[in-house]
């Protein structure tokens, strides 16, 4: 079943609604970062990845690593929407005895392919998965979502080098390039420019796309899938807080929870944009 771009956008809107609800209910979490990669994650789970929600440990499944683990409301919501677990867990984000930890935990949440949260490490784990697929002659692909601030971690570049050495064309990194991080914009905190040039020089295939345009995102994943002999990085230009006007491109909404009034406004805006 292939969804149209419009249907994907509808799912992404539903995802954003869950994100806002979850963070508001938990009174804790990272709204800006979660909304930023919502369209990318929607396309992965509704279009791109070969998965079976009724069998989360299926050996042939494509893997997804949310290396920027603080954006996990996005991942949890899409997993619930795809049926990996009951929707009512979403209201227990970050709560004691719950299955949805503050950062993704593969041992607690069905569908989480690896534990993440400490930044920089997901791409290396993804390289390991990609190498395992090759050893076992399996066709599954591994997708790793990184934040742009995360590119400041040295281990990311260790992973870049090793993926290129082993020609892991079954590995796709997605960089959620909203140019903001907790303390400010990337350029103020620690410039990551020119990201494309840097990654190209590590011998990866690099694609730039609009991280909120369903058609462009799908085209990019297709190009990555067809790329042979080297791993692909998709630099997805995104807007932090996308979908909620007062959060968009605002550094202050990295890890801040909306108050009641702000919450109601966010819900109204998301409803309006769904029509």
């Amino acid at each position, binding site marked *: 079943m292939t969804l149209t771009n419009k249907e994907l956008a509808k799912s992404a809107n539903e995802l954003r609604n869950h994100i806002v609800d979850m963070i508001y209910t938990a009174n804790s979490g990272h709204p800006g970062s979660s909304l930023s990669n919502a369209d990318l994650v929607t396309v992965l789970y509704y279009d791109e990845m070969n998965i079976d929600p009724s069998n989360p440990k299926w050996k042939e499944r494509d893997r997804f690593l949310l290396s920027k683990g603080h954006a996990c409301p996005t991942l949890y919501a899409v997993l619930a929407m795809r049926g990996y677990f009951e929707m009512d867990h979403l209201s227990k984000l970050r709560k004691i005895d719950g299955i949805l930890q503050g950062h993704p*935990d593969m041992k607690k949440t069905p569908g989480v392919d690896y*534990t993440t949260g400490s930044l920089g*490490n997901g791409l290396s784990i993804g*390289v390991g998965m990609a190498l395992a697929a090759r050893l076992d002659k399996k066709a599954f692909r591994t997708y790793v979502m990184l934040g742009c601030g995360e590119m400041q971690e040295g281990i990311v570049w260790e992973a870049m080098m090793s993926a290129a050495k082993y020609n892991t064309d079954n590995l796709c990194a997605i960089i959620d390039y909203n140019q903001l991080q907790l303390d400010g914009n990337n350029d103020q905190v620690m410039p990551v420019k020119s990201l494309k040039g840097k990654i190209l020089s590590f011998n990866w295939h690099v694609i730039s796309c609009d991280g909120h345009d369903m058609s462009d995102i799908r085209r990019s994943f297709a190009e990555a899938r067809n790329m042979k002999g080297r791993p692909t990085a998709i630099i997805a230009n995104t807007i932090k807080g996308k979908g909620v006007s007062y959060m968009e491109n605002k550094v202050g909404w990295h890890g801040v929870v909306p108050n009641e009034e702000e919450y109601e406004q966010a819900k109204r805006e998301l409803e309006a944009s769904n029509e």
Partner: protein
Amino acid sequence: MNRYTIGENIPTRMAYGAALAELGKENENLVVLEADIGKSTQSIVFGDKFPERYFNVGIAEQNEMCIAAGLASCGKIPFVSTYAVFASMRACEQVRTFIAYPNANVKICPSHGGLTPGNDGPTHQATEDLGIMRTIPNMTVCMPADATMTYKAVKAAAEFDGPLYLRLTRDAVPVIYDDQFEFEFGQGILLRTGTEAAIIANGDLVTQAIKASEALEERGISVAVIDMHTIKPLDKELVIEHCMDKRFVVTVEDHQINGGLGSAVAEVLVENCPVPMKRIGLQDTFAESGSYTELLKKYNMDARAIEDAVIRGLENK
């Protein structure tokens, strides 16, 4: 016919390489990661035989740990080779958060434990690693005494489910075991019974403990000697059984006295059957370059220092 001859001097990393190469034949899921020191750690012995399952990731130990974690999540059994300082400190968070926390089936088997890289100096002498690893939940922590035990431990590691830290030596240590003994993680070995004091040692210093016990016997002092190769989980029953009736206990480890074997034994004793004790090891100080033997002597970690500690401990009673 024993694989190694008792009394022969062999670095335990040699037995690691030999055992890996054997395991590679037996288990197709076994993979080895290396960080550019394969000729030193001996992982190259596996790499030469199974190049497609040998990943030399260069000088990048954090990446090495996470790649191992990813491989393990897909059913592989990764053995990770590097030096102990890098495995436990450079890549500490990767080991803790991405191997131990998800209980990944990764075997970290670093060489250059304790003062065994002697002349390399403190930058390459891992003297805090066992203590660091011991505080991490889900982690099993072991240092075999000789080549025979190392060979058995590496074979056992492949069958063991969960994260494991298995520390090896750069320099040669004498073979003390024959092939007949049974090795199991978490089960200490009583090498000698005694009545007055107990010496609990592990790793390369088991040899020194045995020497000390022989010298003490000549003086008419009867001491028990335990090889406590696994400091976590610690064989508490064995500690209690052989310490509760003694007047003095000495722990011996090629490590800081804080956090490792001495601390683990002290914790068990104070909670169960307090016995006066002395911890032999580095006394909260960094060592220096020098030969392994010279360092053991200077930092009071050789047989003579153990012997003195037992005598003084018994006299004070």
